[in-house]
């Protein structure tokens, strides 16, 4: 570490701790934490001045610290595990269902054992998806996050499970209690994990294998390290740690809600990165990660506890001073945590590696600046695309065969098949004008996001923040109209600008500061949603001018408001069936389709996604292409946010939640590649239609032959959407890109041949 603060040239060389175990970084963290705590005491002495606060911070740190230990292995491996929060929630829920007297009423230890098995299973699944099936880690684990959340909702039905009374008879719950010495037993668990984890990573062969795999996987492979095993091991460790954190949580609370572990992945990842790990792998220490966990939890607490203030209120003409607490509204804290994550990710490549402080000092003193160690930042080298599908013209196919050669053919066929399925299930209802109208409406939001995302994904980047940007833009529109009394025009403009600004920040972080797009947009994912919640103070806003709401209505209402409504006949039916947002989507999609398919900018996008280096050699400003694509994606999301508010006539802070998943799945189903270089607007729209149709088929009321009807519970929807995304990505990687079926067939044939010749 460059920030080594050990005493300058000690007189005698003495043995000191190896750098993997502890270094100057941790010393800096400790100092910063002490300062922060003092700041906490200063602004809120009532809370932070008490010893309760210390033990509360330590107790919460214990859970996140345990997860951070596991996550360190994953991040040093150059992977990422976004699923820890939902794994925590899922284990807590499964334990509660097994143990709870209102449910299965088992013993505590068997239930805990099942939960550990569950953690192991999730880890193996993550590991297999990433290491064996070669799904990018952030996609695989993000999907696991949503599937896990969906399962939590589905299993609990959104309700709380409690078992305070039964828990008294079980020793297991001592883990969550304060012991006789005066601190919580969770802290002991945490210490054990921290020490074991630190020693394993820094001192053992397994740890060295982890550093090697993260540093240069190919070199590690050549050296005989089973890197797949190492990566799977990392994911298993991380999931097991999350499962244990979940058990610690139920041991403490003796009950569970469906909110458990929400957003925990952000705190854990931020903790590991703040603790000195590099997001591009190969660097990181368990001790640092544990301290990072303490620091991030402390920040979280300081933000949540708020500042005591005196507010002057006017009661019947008498001014009174009332003690109050200036607090962040619910949901706003992630905005800060996201910022911390991004800042921490930037420290390593910019401050440490480029010796920013040293150069600043030299400049201030007027000296020759020391050379920067390495220019280039932290950009992850893209995976080269390989494909088995050749362009139809290349093989001289015409007509139907040419269509089937298109990468987006599957999505279009699937769309038709799904629509026909709907017609078969509910012939009375599916083809009706009402249903088609509703389908189109639901389609608009996903379609709009997918259009923007197509550019980003074809570029080889990803934008995880579209759903949050949608929420931020919607919140801005609602805020401007409701709190500032702005007119609809100003609201639309400001909302659009707010969303676009998110895109500019995404693009700037990605292209100028060299962050991988998934990290930059993951930060924005939390920041934009936190800001949205902050703007509306976590409430639902409604009651906007009706002229604004016209954006979300059908054409008839718009024309009616303008006093030129069609009287009757076909024009009336058409105006009632087509809504303003559908027309808007059509215009945006056609423009985007022309740009991507027929204009040089589109070619530049494909070239950048195919081989960024080759593209820049040939004079393409790839940074500009990637920047503009990220900005366009955010603009589409911003427009979707404006439409959302107009359509629902209100803004809910949960707007656009999970939409990034739908949009990414749409693009991938529609022929895009998660590694970049492919994707068309038509395909993405077809993909969006597939997602829309699946969603509405899943919520379709099916009338059974005996006359009764059946409808799937909405809580399970996210599980299905997550599974579909994983299936789409796997299908893309294994069938489109690698022609895996062909490879297996060839291998099998070769083996059969070998056996045949052996037999002779």
């Amino acid at each position, binding site marked *: 570490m460059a920030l080594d603060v050990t005493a300058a040239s000690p007189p005698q060389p003495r043995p000191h701790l190896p750098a993997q175990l502890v270094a100057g970084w941790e010393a800096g963290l400790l100092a910063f934490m002490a300062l922060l705590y003092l700041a906490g005491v200063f602004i809120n002495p009532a809370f932070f001045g008490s010893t309760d606060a210390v033990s509360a911070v330590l107790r919460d740190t214990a859970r996140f610290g345990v997860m951070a230990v596991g996550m360190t292995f994953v991040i040093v491996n150059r992977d990422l595990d976004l699923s820890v929060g939902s794994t925590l929630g899922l284990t807590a829920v499964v334990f509660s269902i097994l143990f709870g007297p209102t449910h299965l009423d088992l013993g505590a230890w068997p239930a805990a054992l099942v939960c550990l098995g569950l953690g192991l299973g999730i880890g193996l699944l993550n590991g297999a998806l990433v290491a064996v099936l070669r799904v990018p880690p952030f996609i695989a684990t993000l999907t696991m996050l949503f599937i896990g959340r969906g399962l939590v909702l589905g299993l609990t039905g959104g309700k709380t499970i409690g078992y305070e009374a039964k828990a008294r008879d079980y020793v297991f719950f001592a883990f969550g209690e304060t012991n006789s010495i005066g601190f919580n037993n969770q802290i002991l668990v945490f210490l054990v994990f921290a020490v074991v984890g630190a020693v394993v990573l820094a001192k053992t062969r397994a740890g060295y294998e982890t550093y090697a795999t993260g540093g240069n996987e190919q070199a590690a492979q050549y050296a005989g390290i089973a890197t797949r095993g190492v990566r799977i091991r990392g994911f298993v460790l991380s999931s097991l740690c999350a499962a244990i954190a979940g058990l610690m949580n139920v041991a403490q609370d003796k009950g569970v809600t469906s909110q458990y572990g929400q957003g925990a992945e952000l705190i854990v990842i931020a903790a590991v990165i703040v603790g000195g790990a590099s997001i591009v792998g190969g660097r990181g220490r368990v001790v640092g990660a544990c301290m990072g966990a303490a620091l991030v939890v402390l920040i979280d607490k300081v933000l949540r506890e708020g500042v005591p203030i005196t507010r002057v209120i006017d009661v019947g003409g008498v001014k009174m001073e009332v003690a109050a607490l200036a607090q962040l509204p619910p949901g706003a804290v992630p905005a800060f945590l996201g910022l911390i994550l991004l800042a921490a990710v930037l420290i390593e490549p910019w401050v440490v590696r480029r010796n920013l402080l040293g150069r600043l000092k030299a400049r201030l003193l007027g000296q020759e600046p020391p050379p920067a160690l390495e220019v280039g930042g932290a950009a992850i080298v893209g995976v080269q695309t*390989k494909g088995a599908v050749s362009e139809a*013209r290349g093989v001289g196919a015409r007509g139907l065969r040419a269509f089937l050669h298109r990468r987006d053919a599957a999505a279009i066929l699937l769309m038709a098949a799904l629509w026909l399925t709907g017609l078969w299930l509910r012939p009375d209802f599916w083809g009706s004008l009402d249903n088609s109208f509703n389908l189109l409406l639901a389609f608009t939001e996903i379609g709009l996001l997918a259009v923007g995302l197509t550019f980003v994904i074809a570029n080889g980047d990803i934008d995880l923040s579209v759903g949050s940007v949608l929420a931020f833009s919607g919140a801005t529109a609602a805020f401007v109209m409701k709190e500032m009394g702005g007119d609809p025009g100003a609201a639309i403009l400001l909302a659009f600008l707010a969303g676009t600004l998110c895109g500019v920040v995404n693009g700037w972080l990605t292209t100028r500061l060299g962050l991988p797009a998934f990290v930059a947009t993951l930060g924005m994912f939390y920041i934009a949603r936190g800001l949205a919640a902050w703007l509306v103070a976590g409430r639902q806003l409604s009651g906007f001018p009706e002229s604004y709401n016209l954006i979300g209505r059908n054409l008839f209402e718009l024309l009616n408001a303008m006093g030129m409504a069609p009287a009757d006949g076909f024009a009336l039916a058409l105006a009632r069936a087509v809504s303003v947002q559908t027309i808007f989507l059509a215009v945006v999609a056609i423009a985007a389709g022309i740009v991507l398919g027929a*204009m*040089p900018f589109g070619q530049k996008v494909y070239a950048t996604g*195919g081989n960024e*280096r080759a593209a820049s*050699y040939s004079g*393409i400003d790839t940074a500009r292409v990637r920047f503009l694509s990220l900005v366009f994606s955010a603009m589409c999301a911003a427009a979707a946010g404006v439409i959302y508010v107009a359509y629902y006539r209100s803004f809910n802070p949960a707007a656009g939640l999970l939409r990034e998943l739908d949009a990414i799945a749409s693009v991938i189903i529609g022929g895009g590649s998660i590694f970049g270089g492919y994707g068309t607007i038509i395909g993405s729209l077809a993909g969006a239609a597939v997602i829309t149709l699946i969603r509405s088929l899943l919520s379709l009321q099916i009338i059974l032959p005996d006359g009764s009807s059946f409808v799937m519970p909405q809580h399970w929807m996210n599980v299905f959407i997550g599974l579909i995304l994983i299936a789409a990505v796997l299908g893309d990687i294994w069938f489109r890109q690698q022609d895996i079926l062909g490879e297996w067939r060839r291998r099998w044939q070769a083996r059969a041949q070998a056996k045949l010749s052996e037999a002779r």
Partner: protein
Amino acid sequence: MTTPIVEMRGIVKSFGAVHALKGVDLHLMPGEILGLVGDNSAGKSTLMKVLTGAYHRDAGEVLVNGAPTHFRSPHESRDVGIEMIYQDFALCGNMDVGQNIFLGRWPKRYGLFVDRPRMYEEARKVLDRLKVDVNSVFQKVESLSGGRQQSVAIARAISFEPQVIVFDEPTANLSVMATERLLETMAELKRQGVAQIIISHRLTDIFEVGDRIMVLKRGENVGDRYIRHTSEKEVLELIVSGTRETALTADEALQQAA
């Protein structure tokens, strides 16, 4: 005597404490094929990057057609007709042959749209001029073999109508058959008057098509010979134990031998 198309005099380039080039001279006549050989870290690639403007020299002169130049990037050297073909070809696998040949400068129609018919027609012309067999300009580059991919890279280079092409280890990733085809292509380019510089470890290839061979060692010239009047053995000796004294110019070496 004609002016050399490229002349480099006393090129010096250091990276911190490492002196990569210590006053190297190089000249290339129109239509000549020059082999550039030497051990690893001899400075071959650095010299070529100085020529194309990817690196900035510390001292020395680069003259193209007798005019001094100061390239700040490879795009500027391209403008005066110097092209480099990279070891890994620098192509986009997800795009087809035509799109790759016109990477970054796709022809336009109405000032807005990509003129596909013209692009494929021009691409076809370039490939014909090269006399290589790439089945179709519509084929995806990633579905082509290594040798064909290189043909596309070369086609891309000659579509700029260059005077000089620099090949960086052109045969390193090719099969024997593909190498044969590449050498034919080089001879064809020579017939069309394109001067070429080949960086290679494989002396055999250079001896097959080259006119002259230049040996670098630790950032210095240690030899310059006409292919016709030297042998692989002599060149190997120069690579291993050449000194400043053995450098000579190709003409001096010829006179001494006579």
